[in-house]
């Protein structure tokens, strides 16, 4: 505990704030049913009730409790973004390592495919794919994971390429180890650091991207609570000067700022700069 406290005070203020916010969000995701005063889709009162002691943040366009939906929204919004990012890293990382280890035609093929996908703006590509597969949470996760895996692929491939030519990999190859062993035990441990550093940034990107698509009505489908679509559904309140619809958007912004703070601190620490 003492050790934890002493290292905690060594962190810059912005990173402390970031870590604190991320912890709160993770708690929300884990404990939503116990924290929320009402159910996610329960219709309780008239539409657009003002803030009161029963409904702390008022009710939404269908008369559901705003606060409860914001709490449940953490699950859908953060959860989906987390799954999509993990999937993107799994696909992109695996293919990137494979391309670097095998090389040759496979490498060329994968790299050119990635080039083409990256030449199309990702929002447009996502919209095109969602038209084909239809809008649902599952297709959203798959489409975004595929799109984002291209960026992970590039990073994983370029880092792995500099590892593949090293002597210890050559030694393992001469020892007669299989391709899978090389990737898993020789290369992966050496590329994981930059990949983990990239994870925070990619998560931010995916999270904002999913919120945007949900805001456009193409992500999580009703009645599931989701921060992006909550802003859209209640946007009319803004023209009456009510800030309630902005709270889910604020929740999105707060998390991305927090993650950026933590990533900034990590990158700064890794670069060895002293200020």
């Amino acid at each position, binding site marked *: 505990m003492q050790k934890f406290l002493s290292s905690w005070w060594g962190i810059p203020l912005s990173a402390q704030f970031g870590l604190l916010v991320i912890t709160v969000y993770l708690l929300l995701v884990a404990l939503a049913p116990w924290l929320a005063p009402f159910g996610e889709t329960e219709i309780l009162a008239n539409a657009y009730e003002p803030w009161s002691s029963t409904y702390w943040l008022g009710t939404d366009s269908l008369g559901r409790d705003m606060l409860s939906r914001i709490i449940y929204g953490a699950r859908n919004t953060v959860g989906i973004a987390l799954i999509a990012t993990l999937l993107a890293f799994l696909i992109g990382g695996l293919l990137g390592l494979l391309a670097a280890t095998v090389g040759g035609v496979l490498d060329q093929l994968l790299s050119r495919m990635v080039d083409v996908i990256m*030449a199309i*703006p990702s929002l447009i590509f996502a919209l095109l794919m969602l038209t084909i597969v239809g809008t649902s949470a599952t297709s959203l996760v798959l489409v975004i994971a595929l799109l984002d895996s291209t960026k992970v692929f590039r990073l994983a491939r370029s880092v792995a390429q500099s590892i593949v030519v090293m002597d210890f990999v050559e030694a393992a190859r001469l020892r007669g180890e299989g391709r899978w062993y090389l990737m898993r035990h020789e290369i992966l441990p050496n590329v994981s650091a930059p990949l983990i550093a990239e994870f925070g940034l990619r998560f931010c990107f995916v999270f904002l991207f999913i919120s945007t698509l949900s805001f*456009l009505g193409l992500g999580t489908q009703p009645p599931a609570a989701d921060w992006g679509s909550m802003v859209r559904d209640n946007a009319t309140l803004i*023209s009456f000067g009510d800030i309630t619809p*902005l709270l889910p958007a604020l929740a999105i912004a707060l998390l991305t700022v927090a993650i950026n703070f933590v990533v900034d601190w990590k990158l700064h620490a890794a670069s060895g700069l002293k200020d």
Partner: protein
Amino acid sequence: MDSVLWSVGGWTHDRNNVYELFMGSIAMKAILIMVLQRLSLGFLTLFVVSVIIFSAVELLPGDLAQEILGQSATPETVAAFRAELGLDKPAVQRYGQWLFNVASGDFGHSLANGRAISELLASRVGNTLFLAAYAAIIAVPLSLILGILTALYRNSWFDRSVNVLTLSSISFPEFFIAYILILAFAVKIPLFPSLANIYPDTPLGDMLYRAALPVMTLVMVVVAHMMRMTRAAIINVLASPYVEMARLKGLSPFRVIVKHALPNALAPIINVIALNLAYLVVGVVVVEVVFVYPGLGQLLVDSVSKRDVTVVQAVSLIFAATFILLNLVADVLAIVTNPRLLNPR
């Protein structure tokens, strides 16, 4: 500098000029080859992307004709309709036909209401370009000035506050910025309209006024990126020996940055400007939806939720082509303005 040294060394000016001309033509040739390579690569990408967008229809579960006519249609009518749409021909032939039609301005018909897509696009393309250009005209000079100023006065309170501001506007979703602006400048202080209603016969002055809030949103998002990249690129160059030299000669900090650092930082800056202009063309999607602005983005989002594939195809093609072409222009400009390529040793 060079020519002085040469003449001191006993060489005639003539020979020096011939030498420079000779090296100059080699440089021009190298630049030309690089530009041509980049152009052909760009058009290849454009071709592949058009193939992908065309195949979107092929990937659609079920049959396009069935989709339009509905489940109740008899097999005979479906077959007849397939022939009418040309769906019975091989895919390659249909792709050629589609590309030819698109090139001559015919994008086919909407699945949802049967209207000609070119008719749907007509006013919207102009509106979207107007919005993007309006934002770009404000954003590009603003971000260059901010970037140079923050590089000049780096680590001052001015630099720090601009830094915090831009970092947070990068972290915010666009619709958040848009609604904050609506709340501030349309509801609390009613300066601008919250909805950007624009009709084909709206006069320019009115258009500029009505599009103010959408443009402000776009500018905030784009300036953040461009300014940070400009600052980073200039600071990067400032660390190099020849800038140290210029500083030691006693030049003013402003002159060092504008005359010595900026030309070499230009390539990354041009790239990021083009990337952001390309982003603007796409970023308008969200902004158009928030402000109910009648542009391509809104049409795209509507069509995706209606699964109107042919319209989505047409709009995606326009967006993707603009994006690729802008990146292409940026790459070519970066090659052409690179001082190291223009003045070879």
